[in-house]
Each structure stands twice: as structure tokens, then as C-alpha cells.
């Protein structure tokens, strides 16, 4: 059996910023942005589930974040993941990619005997694409990034396509290996209704009262939650303390327009625009 861990992140939906999300001063109103499953992490999860459809495999999904990140773990269970775990601790807050990958690698080691780690290429809130490779380094796995297709998997090896800039590469690797997956790899499946019925009450242990917890455990609704101590991590390597990079300052981007010259949308305006383009950019013999 292959043990697969999928790394997932809950992110603000930065890709669908509409007019309402912009404040009058041109900055972003974070409060109105919904929190979503990072899109390429869904592609990573889908790849794990496709592998499970083909060979004997167990799919674990882990995320690091505040308790509300439980939403994406439930979503993963609805889609067909076998197990989910939340990594949460105030001491993990303000982590850069290095500290994040350290905490995640602790959780992967806690799961133990993992053959394959799958992650989205990058998260839409930071776009760094660094956490996947840094986890691979911490757990000592080989890695293949920018995976755009799962071609073949057997007990001994995996063959994938990697999307290079000038070439597509077909790469075979033995296990263990970590892959980062792009949105071209697949179309993530919908939630399964039976799984939704089964897991809609799922939550972390502390969300249940003592009476409820027994029922929750019997029904498999308890999503384990790990903190710094239970993962036996070094506090100096977590959160802000463990982050070599620090934010020096933040500036909201505001549009600095100015000399906008408008043309009317009738023939006269369009004609003038084309004449201006021709005059400035097209050489006339």
C-alpha cells in the first residue's frame, strides 16, 4: 500500500477580487474575501485520489492554519480523502516558507512511512512555490515540481510530465518523492454525497463537548489536531522565530493614474485613436 500525504492550504480568494473588495482608497478589503481551498492543492488532492483509484493507496490530507481551516479538510474528506489532520498552534503564526515547511515536515514524520507527498505548485496568497520543495528538503525526499500530468504509477515508481518553460519533460522517479502539481494536471472531482453525509459533522476534538466526542469518535467525525508539542517540534524553528525573512514594510497598491485621454466610441473617436496609433507607432514610408 502506498501512503500519500497531500499538503493543503486555506487561502483568501485573491483571484476573484471584484469591485466590492476594493476600498475607496484602492486597497483591499480582506474581510469580504471568502476563504477557499487553494486551487492547485485541489489538483494535488485530485492526483492523490486518481492514484487511489488505480492502486492500493491511503490518502492523508494535512493543513496548517487556524481552526477554521477545518473547512478545507472536510472538503477533502467529501472528495474522498481517507484521513485529515489539522496542524494548529499560535506559535506557528507568522511563519515564512522555511518555518512552515518545518512544521509540515513534522506532521509528515508523525504520519510515518510516507511514500509520496503531493502539494499544489503554489498558493494564491503568496505565490512563492517554495513550501513544497522546502518540505522535500526537510524530509529528505526527491522532488519533481510543476507536474502537469500523472502518466503512470506502480508499486516501485511513478512517471509524470513536468511542465518546463521550453520543454515538457517525462520523468520517472522512485519513492519516496514529493510532487508539486499545477492546475493543468487534472480537473478536481466534486464532493461525493455519501461522504458529505458521513463527514459533515467532522471537526477537531476541542469542538465537541465531552458527551458529543464519544459519538463523534464512533462515527469517525474527529479530525485530529496537532500542535507544536504533539509534533515534538523545536519552537525556535516555528512561526515568526523560525522565519529568517521578516516583513519590513507593506504598501497597498493604489492606482496612480493621471493623464488619461479619452476618445469617444463613435467613428470619429475611433478614427482619431487609430490615427494617433499610426502616427506614433507605425513607420510611414
Amino acid at each position: 500500500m502506498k501512503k500519500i500525504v497531500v499538503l493543503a492550504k486555506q487561502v483568501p480568494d485573491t483571484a476573484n477580487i471584484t469591485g466590492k473588495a476594493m476600498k475607496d482608497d484602492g486597497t483591499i478589503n480582506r474581510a469580504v474575501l471568502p476563504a477557499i481551498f487553494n486551487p492547485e492543492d485541489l489538483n494535488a488532492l485530485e492526483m492523490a485520489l486518481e492514484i487511489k483509484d488505480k492502486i492500493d493507496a491511503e490518502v492523508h490530507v494535512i493543513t496548517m492554519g487556524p481552526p477554521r481551516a477545518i473547512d478545507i479538510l472536510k472538503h477533502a474528506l467529501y472528495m474522498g480523502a481517507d484521513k485529515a489532520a489539522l496542524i494548529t498552534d499560535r506559535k506557528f503564526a507568522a511563519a515564512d516558507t522555511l518555518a512552515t515547511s518545518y512544521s509540515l515536515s513534522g506532521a509528515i514524520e508523525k504520519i510515518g512511512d510516507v511514500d509520496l507527498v503531493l502539494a499544489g505548485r503554489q498558493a494564491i496568497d503568496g505565490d512563492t512555490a517554495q513550501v513544497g520543495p522546502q518540505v522535500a528538503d526537510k524530509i529528505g525526499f526527491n522532488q519533481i515540481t510543476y507536474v502537469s500530468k500523472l502518466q503512470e504509477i506502480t508499486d516501485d515508481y511513478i512517471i509524470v510530465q513536468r511542465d518546463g518553460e521550453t520543454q515538457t519533460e517525462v520523468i520517472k522517479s522512485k519513492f519516496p518523492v514529493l510532487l508539486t502539481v499545477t492546475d493543468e494536471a487534472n480537473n478536481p472531482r466534486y464532493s461525493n454525497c455519501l461522504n458529505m453525509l458521513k463527514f459533515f459533522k467532522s471537526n477537531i476534538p476541542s469542538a465537541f463537548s465531552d458527551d458529543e466526542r464519544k459519538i463523534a469518535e464512533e462515527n469517525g467525525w474527529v479530525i485530529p489536531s496537532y500542535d507544536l508539542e504533539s509534533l515534538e517540534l523545536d519552537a525556535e524553528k516555528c512561526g515568526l522565530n523560525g522565519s529568517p525573512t521578516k516583513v519590513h514594510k507593506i504598501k497597498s497598491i493604489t492606482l496612480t493614474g493621471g493623464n488619461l485621454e479619452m476618445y469617444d466610441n463613435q467613428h470619429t473617436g475611433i478614427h482619431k485613436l487609430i490615427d494617433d496609433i499610426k502616427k506614433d507607432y507605425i513607420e510611414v514610408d
Partner: protein
Amino acid sequence: MQTIVYIEKNPITNKSRFVSLELAYKAYTLMQPSKGEVVGVFVGDSLPEDTDDLFKNGLDRLIYYTDDNLKNLQSIAYKNIIEQIIKSEEPDIVLFGATHNGRDIAPLIASSLRTGLTADCTQLYIDDLIYRKENKGQSLFQVRPAFGGNILATIVTPDNRPMMASVREGVMTLPEKKLNKPVKLEKANVDFNKEWIKNDFLSIIPKIKHVNFDTSDIIVAGGAGVGSKETFNLLHQIAKSLGGEVGSSRAAVDFGFSEKVRQIGQTGSIVRPKLYIACGISGQIQHRAGMEESKKIIAINNDKDAPIFGIAHKGIIGDLNEILPVMLHYLREEE
């Protein structure tokens, strides 16, 4: 001070990638005030054939390690070799192109060296850093868009060395006048173990690039507002009469109006043509990140409040289905 620049080769042209030349020059300008050294590091099967060009853009020295096993990206082997070079050179700064390969190995190296890496920087400068009231001396200030490009964050690495950053192709510029520096090549004195070769490349399919934004003075780009593939075809015709190239926003790709290779923006190409005509592009920050350095921007959109008008120099508010055919008509007139 010393800066190391990771040098990459374009496997199709066998020459240095543009981003490597751009970073060589950026490193040169960063090192100028302190008269610091700029060292290139190359790993692969053979050196790029235009190594002298790297020196004309700012390198003082190029350290290389070549082996037939290193023709294609071997993450673990590349990491181990580059890490050994960094450990022996002890640079203050290490710069990577934020290419698919650069973004593969830079994080491995930063993790292994336990230092900071800032991705996709759009500005880099050196200044004195005061962090928590302590003077950390001359440090690299790394400016990058974050939160989907809605904020610009300045990142510093106060206590760890080297300070590592990646930069996307097209963000930094080349020198106006080439530098006159001697070629100085140096074979890396490092251990190499075949056990580090973990990836078996079964086949390689070159991508044929139909789109060349680098050499286009004019780009005609369309977004979701174009509305249909048929209307998008008008953009191709307009671009053709102007001698330009066609680009698109991510939304236009998602709707199937345009191909992924034409995507401009944070997850596509970064362009800076003389003229950028944005049709039916609202101008979300992710798109602006890829084109706002264009010299002139013309926006055509039916939404007068679209953010694209905030950065445009000329604009028309109206329906593209009516405007584009008229544009084409006047463009073809007198041809």
C-alpha cells in the same frame, strides 16, 4: 560584499537565459557601491555558448560544474553542488531567476542553508537595515507583490546569510551599454555523487513557442470582456495590421478565447512593449503585474470604472463588438 547569481541555459538556443543576463547586471549594480564581486554559478552538461555575454552584463567570475548526468534538472544533485559552492564562497546575496528550474532548486538550497528566500522580487536594493533597534548593516531589501499582487511587501533577512531572492524574467533590465569585463571561468571544486541523480528523464518534448513577446513593440491583449472566440479573432487581425503580438488575460484563457502561452500577468509572461492595447480587460492586479511597465497603455472597456483606466494613457468606453470592427476598418484604410 559578494553576490552569487545562478546562471541558467536555454536548452533550445544553448545560450544563457535572458533572466541570467538581467540578474548579472542587477547584481553588478547592487555591488557597485561596495565594489563587491559578482560570481555566476552554472551547473549542467556544458556551459552556455555565450559565456562572454554574461561578463558583458556584469559577472566578475563564473564558477561551473559540468557533467553529462546534469543535462536535465536533477534537483538533489544541483542543490548539493550549488550548496557546496555557496559554502565555500560565503556570499552575502544569492540571486535566482524565478524560472521553473530556479523555483525548483532555490527553495531546496535556502532550506538546507536555513536562510531566507524571497520569491519573485520586483525591486532589490541595498541599504542599512535597522531591525528591532539593532543595526544589521548593509542588507538586501527585497520588494515583492503579495496577496495576489494587491500589496507590495518589502522583505528583509536580518540575521541569516546569504540573503536569497528570486526574480522573474523581464523584471530587471539589461545595461544600455555593455560592460568591458574579462572572461574568468573557474571549474567548481566540489564533490559529486551519482546517487544524487534521482530523476530519470524518459523523454523531452520541446515546446514550440508561437508567441514572442520579447521582440514585440505592440501587444494587443484581450480579456473576459471580449466575450467570444470570434471577437478575439478580431484582436489577431488588429495585431497583424499593427505588426504586433496578441496577448490575453488569464480570464480569456480560462474562457477558452485564447491560448495559455499568450497569458500575460502574474502567472503568465511579464511584458513591457511600447504600446499595450487592453481590450475587455478589467485590469485586475494579477494582470497589471504583467503589463503595467508598458510605455503606453490604451484601454477599451465597457465599464468606465474598470481599474485598467487607472493606469491607461488613452481610453474608449464602449462595446468591443462595435469598436473593434471600426478600428480594423480604419487600420486597413490607406494600407
